[in-house]
């Protein structure tokens, strides 16, 4: 009976553990201009100053929009107008500075100042675009992606 009881409890505990980890804030919005939203689990939240950003969020700006986010590892990430940036993965151990920061710029412009993650390991930070994968060695960089204008 006892092992059956544990088998029942364990999956529940695991589910809660994963949910808690996923809900941990990856960063916070520090700058917000114009039309700027965060898409989370199918819902759109205003990307207002102070808004938490989590793994899985998608940052979306309109024609007059821009957003600046400071992440827990001190990475600074900002997007310009008409941009879509997906925060695919953010894991950061504040003691060891190990983890991963993967994001995808689907369209638009992006400015990045890498933080403690990229300093700790050159593999830790990646930015994907529809056409390329960018690896980061402790640095500042810019990304623009989109179809060529006719």
């Amino acid at each position, binding site marked *: 009976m006892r092992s059956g009881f544990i088998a029942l409890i364990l999956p529940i505990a695991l589910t809660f553990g994963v949910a808690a980890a996923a809900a941990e804030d990856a960063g*916070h*919005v*520090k*700058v917000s*201009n114009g039309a700027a939203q965060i898409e989370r689990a199918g819902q759109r939240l205003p990307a207002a*100053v*102070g808004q938490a950003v989590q793994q899985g969020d998608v940052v979306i700006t309109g024609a007059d929009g*821009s*957003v*600046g*986010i*400071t992440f827990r590892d*001190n990475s*600074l990430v*900002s*997007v*310009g*107008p008409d*941009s879509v940036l997906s925060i695919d993965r953010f894991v950061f151990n504040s003691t060891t500075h190990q983890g991963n920061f993967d994001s995808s710029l689907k369209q638009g*412009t*992006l*400015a990045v*100042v*890498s933080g403690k993650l*990229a300093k700790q390991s050159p593999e830790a930070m990646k930015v994907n*675009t*529809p*056409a*390329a*994968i*960018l*690896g*980061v*060695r*402790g*640095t*500042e*960089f*810019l*990304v*623009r*992606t*989109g*179809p*060529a*204008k006719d």
Partner: protein
Amino acid sequence: MFVPARRKTDVRSASARSLVGLAPLALLLLAGCASRNDLYVLLPGQDGKIGALIVSSGGEQRVLDQPYAAASVTSPGRVEGRATSEAEVRQAFGPALAAQPTRPVSFFLYFLADTDELTPDSKRVVGQIFAEIARRPAPEIVVIGHTDRVGAVAYNDALSLKRAEKVRDDLLKLAIPKVRISVAGRGEREPLVPTADEVSEPRNRRVEISVR
């Protein structure tokens, strides 16, 4: 892509066929094969350090390791290196650069021996430091207290936490909107200046305020 018109009386099957005709185009777009306007630029670091950006696209790789070195990608695998300038970068990335958050920073305050009272020097600058913190939007603040090595470890743990909490309480009086503050006491474990035990060292009696 040109989809030839068909004479069909059955509307449903005609629209189904035109969708099939569009499928290769959709695949092309999904694969990112359409002509692109991608630009990747390495910036000079503000701390003077130059890192590197490794651009991988369709089996091609290019390493950017000079300030304002850039790669343009017109389709996956077509990576061309070129130089940009600060002026060109401002033009192409102005709003994204303007939206960069203020860089994280740390401040130090120092304390009189065995107290949570600031030294006269720190008292003079604390107002200026607090004003700078208060200017930041939705600041996240970590306050970490430290002691020198005079006294027992457990006593210094408590003293370092008391110093950090004193600074936090003063910061809270500023009523900064959306502020988040956490505190910790590290006791005598992380001296700024390493000393033997029981040595009085003013530089170790400090609180570090990290703000982002």
